[in-house]
């Protein structure tokens, strides 16, 4: 997976094109273009991105979301008659979905619709967790790392106190308080307890960057703190932030499924991938598909997001990839 992502030799000049001495044409690329290029050449990350897009499109177009209808005619709430013991019909007769591609549960609900609904809800929660974590972590880490002094002491003590409680424990308590108020609040609440890691990373980056000459130069010409933070330091930390945000989404999916397993996540009649596994875990021997499908979707989502994160890390910071001499 960690293929050598270095492109052909590039110059760091900003002139559009120039002809080198040996007559070879050298194309100048901006930092952003170089990162994008490395990312697009990362095979595992591309595979992950493709899988994730496929799952997202499948989940949201099939049964529709909110007011939008989908192409799949069965609802995840409607029970029905159990056909053929509820066995999956996917690919049983050639390359066709059949009546119930993922099978049915014991009361005849269409399991494809259930898994799609679970995927939708898990994705929504995970993305909200990712966004909230990123915003809070960046804000707190940046404030602590830039202003130092008392601001830093207070913010970092809060971070330490939060880290001394295992995330799952904290998340379970927060979910018990906010979980019944709906999926958006659940996501926000979980984001509020998972930002600590990113805050520490961002703080470290800020502490190192604020001592650099270019920050001093900016300050010397009278640039405001806000402008220094947003225009001079933040763009230099964007790599760390994007990578951590991606990994936070993967962790968010798993956190939500774990909480659903403990009965604290999304509440019935709505479902998430975690609550599906929990509900049907005893069916593993009699109706194994009820156990396998949601699990496969969780692993597929988490794995592809993790691969995307890895690709982004390699794209932003290719040092790790260099082959040893």
């Amino acid at each position, binding site marked *: 997976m960690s293929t050598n992502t270095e492109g052909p030799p590039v110059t760091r000049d900003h002139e559009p094109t120039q002809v080198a001495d040996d007559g070879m044409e050298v194309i100048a690329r901006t930092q952003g273009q170089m990162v994008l290029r490395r990312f697009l050449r990362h095979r595992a990350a591309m595979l992950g991105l493709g899988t994730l897009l496929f799952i997202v499109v499948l989940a949201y177009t099939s049964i529709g979301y909110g007011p939008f209808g989908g192409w799949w005619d069965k609802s995840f709430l409607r029970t029905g008659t159990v056909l053929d013991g509820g066995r999956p019909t996917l690919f049983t007769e050639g390359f066709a979905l059949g009546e119930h591609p993922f099978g049915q549960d014991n009361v005849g609900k269409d399991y494809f619709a259930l898994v799609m609904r679970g995927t939708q809800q898990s994705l929504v929660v995970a993305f909200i967790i990712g966004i909230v974590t990123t915003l809070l972590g960046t804000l707190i880490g940046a404030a602590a790392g830039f202003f130092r002094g008392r601001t830093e002491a207070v913010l970092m003590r809060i971070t*330490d106190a939060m880290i001394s409680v295992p995330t*799952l424990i904290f998340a*379970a*308590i927060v979910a*018990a*308080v906010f979980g019944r108020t709906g999926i958006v609040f659940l996501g926000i609440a979980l984001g509020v307890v998972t930002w600590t890691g990113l805050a520490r990373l961002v703080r470290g980056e800020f502490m190192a960057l604020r001592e650099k000459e270019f920050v001093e130069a900016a300050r010397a010409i009278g640039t405001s703190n806000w402008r220094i933070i947003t225009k001079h330091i933040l763009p230099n930390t964007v790599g760390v932030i994007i990578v951590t945000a991606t990994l936070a989404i993967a962790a968010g999916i*798993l956190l939500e499924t774990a909480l659903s397993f403990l009965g604290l996540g999304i509440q019935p009649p709505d479902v998430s991938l975690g609550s599906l596994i929990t509900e049907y*875990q005893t069916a593993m021997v009699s109706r194994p598909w009820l156990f396998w499908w949601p699990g496969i979707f969780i692993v597929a989502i988490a794995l592809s997001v993790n691969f995307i994160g890895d690709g982004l890390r390699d794209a932003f910071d290719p040092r*790790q990839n260099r082959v040893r001499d």
Partner: protein
Amino acid sequence: MAVFILRRFIISTFTLLAASFVVYFGVSISGDPFEDLRGIQDEGDAQIQIAARRELLQLDVPVPLRWFNWLTGIFRGDFGLNIRNQDVSALLSNAAAATMQMVIVATVLAIVLGVTVGIVSALRQYSGFDYSLTFAAFLFYSLPVFWVAVMLKQYAAIEFNNWLRDPTISPTVTVVVALLAAVAWQALIGGDRQRRLVVSITSFASTAAVLVFFSTTRWFADPGFGTIVVGVMSVISAVVATYLTAGFRHRPPLQAAGATAVAGVGFYLVGGPILAEPSAWTLLGLFVLGIGAALGIGAGLGGIHRRQAMSASALTAVLVSGVIFMDQLLQAYERFFGLVRGRPISTVGSATPGFTGNFWEVGLDSISHLMLPTVALLLISFAVYTRYTRASMLEVMNQDYIRTARAKGLTERTVVMRHGFRNALIPVTTLMAFDFGAVIGGAVITEQVFGWQGMGTLFIRGLNEVDPNPVMAFFVVAGGSIVVFNMIADIAYAYLDPRIRLS
């Protein structure tokens, strides 16, 4: 150094206090503590019970004051009562032992295995081994713990127990496993094409031979080592220990390690009566005694290579003790197998109810209960440690001082073990403290799948019933052990990095 650790300790105590308030507050406002009583038909009875519970949980007192009462109780060693009027201290002492055992075993195994595999993976960067390991780490990292736990319960416990009724290995499985072993070993050892071929063929043949032997002698029905295997494994331990600590260039370390292995096997042969019915303390004493003896042997035989000889023979002593321990456990297997009616891998609880036996049988019983939850818990931590160690080792091996070490003619073993390994461990120690909290969180989930009455149950039930005291008892143990683990990590950090010690 002592000041550094003391300061960290005081700060963590205060952060723990603050966190305890947040947790207490969160649990107290998380729901309706009378939910189960609201359904009672008899109106008068319901009122009486609600009033009694209000009294028991002190619901008329404001939450911060309740927290303060709880806190003063903790300092007297009183964890309070739960919603059913039971003493939480008693519940906790039953629950904590099993859970902490599982958490600590999982963490230690994850560190040892993860660091070892991570280092090998970094040294074989971009090999087949490295790629498959990277993929495995990502996969483990993306697995929901409970999903794995449910699968382990089905396949590694129930189906394995079924298989044990007739423990034979089919030829197909033998060939497949042997092929996998061949691929893995040649990727691991590396080298040119000829060497890879030799390694593949050798490992294929030996794996297949071992599997056929296991199958035909029905070894899994009554596993055991026997004197010869213990002897051979002890000699291998001595060679491995010498390779890792001192190398073979000079004789004395190997001689010292060999002498230690011989002494260990000698004790194994004559010490049977002591080992038959030991207590845990006897074993611990023997272990310490063995290490001491090994250090003595190393010092005596080492000559000018005294230090290396001492570490080689001490490591040998640890490995040989492990071999003897395993052997003794397996000797008790037959009786244990009968006691659990032929289904050794358990799926429920942390111990067989009413199980009695000597040290080894009880040991086997708790291992058979601990094994699967620990594996489920291990996978994620293992993945994190491998990735982290690999990255850290790659970075270290690119440093200039490694090039210097190579340039002055040190052997690759010395470069890796002395200059690389130790420095690569420094960032890994900071991971330890973080990861430990995650493992405790994972333990809550695995315990639910395997039906343990452990700390996780205490926590979840307390949270569902809006009953803060059991949750706080869990928090005290979890938070306290995280603080302790943080300190261990700090000490390890200071040991590995002299800049911390001397500042």
